[in-house]
């Protein structure tokens, strides 16, 4: 945090200017594209860094856009559809074609444009492209190139191919901005197949005892990953919040097995031995009681910590995350070839120090919360 402030001048986000976009555009919004290749009215800063850290989020002056901003801005490049990355209120959105349907569903009427993975797009003086991050279906890292200097913003990512999300691709860059939700050596994930076996065993044991299995998981990404990685031991029922995103992703062509939305009349009797996938907030509610007798479990990287498992009173926790674990974070950073790394979202202070000791020039991107550390209470929502 300290280093960042010294090296990167913090500057105010530019005020909205009522400037007509100039120049021809080859993009499908035509002359009306909010992401014009040239913005003559806003001179690029020759000496400044490619990205600066403002009170609205990451800002690229040379292209006059923000990445995953948390306050309303004119132009936002969005890495993926989770609510702490894709926020409401921006003038225009640019995201991968695969991420857009969910973003539109969540944010309603927005002005948004899709871009294919790996396609270069010129915005202002910057060449921008989106690359798979392996976090959830449609999620991306964003690569920026300006006068030969390359920055990559990781968004959220994981390295293991989950069979559903577009698998992570390492992108060479000079400066890498990496999430570090699980940036401590405490966190090491088992291979997905191993966790799938554990969950399948639990489901089968519950079914044998005449119990419904209720598995809590976040509605975008984790829920669908679970559906697709588990063997078909019985019907999969979904809470409304999960079913919506599942339907959208299935319609996009992602290979997600059939699911049944829980409505009146769908219960333990109608679907014996079922697996119910629901958001964590639904556990222990009257909604969940229709499945009695049942066994509840939570699938999250945070389940690695006994203290959290015990505090939340989950009998069973499956350790599975859509974020990189400690070895994967280190691998990903090494493979970018970057000499400078900024860390964000997670255990930023220790992770920055660790990277510095490994010989990187390392800094912290301060988040909206003012703290430099997103702890479980905050992070769990975005997993």
């Amino acid at each position: 945090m300290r280093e960042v402030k010294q090296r990167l001048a913090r500057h105010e986000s530019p005020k909205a200017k009522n400037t007509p976009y100039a120049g021809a555009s080859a993009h499908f919004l035509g002359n009306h594209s909010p992401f014009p290749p040239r913005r003559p009215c806003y001179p690029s800063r020759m000496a400044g860094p490619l990205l600066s850290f403002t009170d609205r989020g990451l800002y690229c002056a040379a292209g006059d856009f923000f990445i995953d901003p948390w306050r309303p801005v004119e132009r936002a490049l969005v890495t993926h559809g989770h609510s702490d990355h894709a926020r409401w209120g921006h003038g225009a959105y640019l995201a991968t074609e695969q991420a857009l349907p969910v973003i539109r569903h969540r944010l309603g009427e927005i002005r948004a444009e899709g871009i294919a993975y790996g396609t270069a797009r010129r915005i202002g003086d910057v060449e921008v492209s989106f690359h798979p991050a392996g976090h959830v279906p449609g999620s991306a890292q964003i690569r920026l190139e300006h006068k030969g200097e390359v920055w990559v913003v990781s968004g959220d990512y994981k390295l293991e191919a989950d069979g559903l999300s577009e698998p992570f691709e390492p992108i060479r860059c000079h400066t890498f901005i990496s999430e570090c939700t699980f940036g401590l050596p405490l966190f090491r994930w088992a291979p997905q197949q191993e966790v799938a076996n554990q969950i399948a065993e639990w489901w089968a044991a519950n079914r044998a005892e005449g119990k419904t299995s209720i598995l809590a998981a976040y509605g975008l990404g984790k829920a669908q990953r679970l559906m697709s990685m588990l063997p078909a031991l019985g019907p999969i029922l979904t809470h409304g919040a999960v079913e919506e995103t599942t339907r959208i992703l299935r319609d996009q062509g992602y290979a997600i097995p059939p699911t049944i939305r829980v409505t009146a009349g769908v219960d333990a009797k109608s679907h014996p031995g079922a697996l119910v996938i629901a958001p964590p907030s639904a556990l222990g509610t009257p909604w969940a009681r229709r499945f009695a007798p049942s066994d509840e479990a939570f699938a999250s990287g945070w389940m690695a910590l006994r203290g959290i498992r015990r505090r939340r009173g989950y009998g069973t926790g499956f350790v599975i995350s859509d974020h990189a674990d400690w070895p994967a974070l280190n691998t990903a950073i090494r493979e970018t070839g970057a000499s400078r790394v900024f860390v964000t979202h997670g255990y930023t202070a220790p992770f920055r120090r660790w990277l510095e000791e490994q010989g990187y020039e390392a800094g912290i991107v301060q988040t909206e919360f003012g703290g430099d550390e997103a702890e479980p209470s905050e992070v769990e929502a975005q997993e």
Partner: protein
Amino acid sequence: MVNSTELRLWASDAAGIPLWLFEESYAVAGDLAETIARLLPPALQAADPGLDATLRRLIALTGQPEAARRAFVAEAWASLGPEERFLFNKLLTGGFRMGVSQGLMVRALAQATGEEEATLAHRLMGDWDPARITFEALVTGKGATQDTGDARPYPFALAAPLEDAPESLGPVADWLAEWKWDGIRGQLVTRPGAFALWSRGEELITDRFPEFAPLADFLPPGTVLDGEVLGWRDNAPLPFADLQKRIGRKTVPRKLLTEAPARMLAYDLLEENGQDLRPLPLSTRRARMEALLLRLPPNLPLAPSPRVAAPDWTALAAARSTARETGTEGLMLKRLTSSYHVGRKRGDWWKWKIDPYSVDAVMIYAQAGHGRRANLYTDFTFAVRDGNDLVPFAKAYSGLTDAEFAEITRWVQKHTLERFGPVRRVPPELVFELAFEGIQESPRHKSGIALRFPRMVRWRRDKTPDQIDTIDSLRALLRVAQS
């Protein structure tokens, strides 16, 4: 056999990470055994040494040089799976325990074995050695070993806090009132060839109180007294802290013996001439105890805890209000017809404590808790005002609801000014009312005072930091407490 500093060093070495990163990880996991288990690289080969063998090897490690202890621990780490490693570390750190009350454990064992609950509770007392007694002998009492049987104490009878008006207890004449002393509750056991002082935690503390040794010669064999061990000088109890200095030591230096000589004030007689008196009414036990103690020569450090006599509840309440001047925490009320029950049983024994002191203070540091409270900021440091400055004076970690701790945790995360390892400095904004049982001078603390049992009573959202108490008001309390 292995201290936690050694474990941290060995583990961070084995994990190939710097010590500071180990400490950061520990602060997040909140459990040393778990931290180590998660940080070590996967086991090289699987081994299943069994609990009994592991414990024996661990015990044999005591007193070995560091190299030998380290080699054993490293070998175990390298050969155990993650779950086994976690349990091994728990055994190593002495943290292998579950929070089950003794009463519940005894009841479960009684149901499982068909033994009488009270009998079983008594058999489980004392410091029997699992390596030298079988489970069978322990629970059935058959073939109980000679070396532990003789000095074994009885299960302590405990009192419940009195929440209703004392008038609800009926006529005052049905009750024995005595001071609730602030010392160490203990049982003094003399049996043929055995003399022992047990703390309520069933720890043998005979050697910490050499001044009681002469009692072995004067108390008839087959006598068990329940009482309070106190530091005592000039006919008055010393503050608990003076006694506390003696508890942590294996042997007590002469200086402490003269500065804080110990005395036992006896509450009850549980055994006389080898006969178990517990079923008899308190009035009988008490009379026999007073008679027994009267027969002792003078100048022994043992006397009955005086009765507090009063014609009615109003007079007794007035006596209770002077508790602080007598150096006590209030009154104990025991029904004169009551037997000496096992554990906490409501109805016959009540503690009627005086209201605690209280102070409004502001939080200045927060630290995450451990175990179930890992990742939750629950341990706070508080300050009072000293002119324009704030002076830290107490730490507390209990008294709030889970919801309040969660809310404060979010606040701490957003308002951290500085980090010192697991500790966060926060702006002095949140005001809490703290309660505490006693106040003492303490040269070790910056504020010059130390509180006894500080805890949070409530979060004073209605107060701002300029409305908190001052160090002068605490010093005034200290002067009252000392006089």
